[in-house]
């Protein structure tokens, strides 16, 4: 029956009152953060769209689990919704490793307490600060005990994903059976020190949006060529909101360079495209980036039934609704709608 589920891998609850995050911190840290600069900045910690965005202030349903369930889970018959705390996705742009780890932990505590109990359909991607990977690994191990935690949201650090910096995080995620979620936050290509996008810092927010899949390409190439999936054979990584059309040409090029440069990476036992199908997932948003014609072939070229999962980005303004999946051909539609997510996310079968 898992094949018939509708699983949304990309829901965005938001913290709209920073005082709620303070309440999730130890007292001393609460005092550290409790000053007007932080409180003002925390309300805008969601820098997803950047300057020039038409997006509105956080939609009311984003801060209320029951309202979001009534507005979205119920009418669209969502069986499971993965909460991805997008305000945590930008933690990599902060410079204090300890404070950032405390903030990550507070975000996780907030959504676990306020949302997971509110509706059994919610699952949580816990966020970790990438600055101190051992501390991040401890955070993962602590949350792994909660069966409603289904993934780990990993803001990218200043090194490519193949770097040994991340290994403690990969080890902890693999041991817990939790896939990683890599999700754009708006810091990419917009702040000095954040991951660069091709060509440098782009003034146009549209360019930064178009290029967001570059970080998926960069990360996947690094993971594959540097042997991360050999070291961590159970690890899965989900790249959200990059769509997926680009993945066809990308995996062909990976295979070609793997053949060219075999002597540089003799640890690879499988072609990159095979590793891609085994270890990597992509979510669908934005579906508006897909062509009208040729969709069937495109889905086949990216092996969509093994690699593509539905993610709405609800309730942010450019979200997709599940009905938009109806134009996918029947065979792949069910796996995109939820079948693949059922085996990718950590979803323990209830006792």
């Amino acid at each position, binding site marked *: 029956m898992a094949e018939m589920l509708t699983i949304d891998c990309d829901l965005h609850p938001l913290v709209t009152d920073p005082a709620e995050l303070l309440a999730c911190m130890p007292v001393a840290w609460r005092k550290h953060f409790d000053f007007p600069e932080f409180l003002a900045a925390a309300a805008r910690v969601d820098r997803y769209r950047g300057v020039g965005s*038409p997006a509105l202030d956080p*939609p009311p349903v984003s801060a209320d689990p029951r309202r979001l369930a009534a507005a979205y889970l119920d009418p669209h018959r969502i069986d499971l919704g993965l909460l991805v705390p997008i305000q945590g996705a930008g933690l990599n742009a902060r410079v204090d490793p300890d404070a950032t780890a405390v903030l990550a932990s507070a975000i996780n505590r907030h959504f676990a307490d306020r949302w997971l109990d509110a509706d059994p359909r919610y699952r949580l991607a816990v966020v970790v600060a990438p600055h101190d990977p051992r501390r991040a690994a401890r955070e993962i191990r602590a949350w792994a005990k909660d069966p409603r935690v289904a993934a780990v949201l990993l803001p990218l650090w200043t090194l490519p994903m193949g770097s040994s910096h991340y290994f403690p995080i990969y080890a902890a995620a693999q041991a817990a059976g939790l896939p990683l979620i890599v999700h754009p936050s708006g810091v990419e290509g917009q702040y000095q020190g954040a991951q660069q996008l091709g060509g440098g810092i782009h003034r146009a927010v549209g360019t930064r949006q178009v290029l967001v899949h570059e970080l998926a390409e960069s990360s996947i190439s690094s993971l594959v060529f540097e042997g991360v999936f050999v070291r961590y054979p159970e690890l899965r990584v989900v790249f959200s909101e990059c769509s997926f059309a680009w993945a066809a040409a990308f995996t062909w090029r990976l295979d070609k360079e793997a053949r060219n440069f075999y002597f540089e990476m003799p640890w690879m036992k499988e072609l990159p495209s095979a590793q891609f199908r085994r270890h990597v997932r992509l979510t669908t948003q934005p579906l508006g980036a897909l062509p009208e014609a040729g969709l069937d072939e495109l889905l086949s070229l990216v092996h969509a039934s093994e690699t593509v999962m539905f993610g709405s980005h609800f309730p942010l303004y*450019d979200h997709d609704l599940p009905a938009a999946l109806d134009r996918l051909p029947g065979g792949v539609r069910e796996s995109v709608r939820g079948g693949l997510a059922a085996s990718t996310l950590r979803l323990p079968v209830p006792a």
Partner: protein
Amino acid sequence: MTALLERHRVGAVEDFEIDRFRVFELDGRSIGVVRTTAGFFAIRNTCPHEGAPLCQGQVRGTMLPSRPGSFRWGREGQVVRCPWHGYDFYLGSGECVFGEVRDRAIAYRVEVRRGEVFVRVKPRRKRAA
């Protein structure tokens, strides 16, 4: 064709505050009427994107075509921004200013005669009881 439209009186000109929608049930449809600095407009109170109450949105202008690196603001009072997702619609035509919404908001003709405001609505066919 306009002779087939019914005329519904929605009030006097002075009943309308600038940029403040007033919503009426006209021939079974929820229609918002607004007076702006650009005149009177009437639009269906349903956003074509996901059905939001469009007339709870903000009346505004929009960016005009301009040279690279500069902005020009205009059409003040001719645009409504949907309260749910921020899509902008021209009040006169109902067309979406930008974005992925393919359908128009439904716009209705407004007439002002001797200080009275009327909305022209095509009557619905009466269904059998």
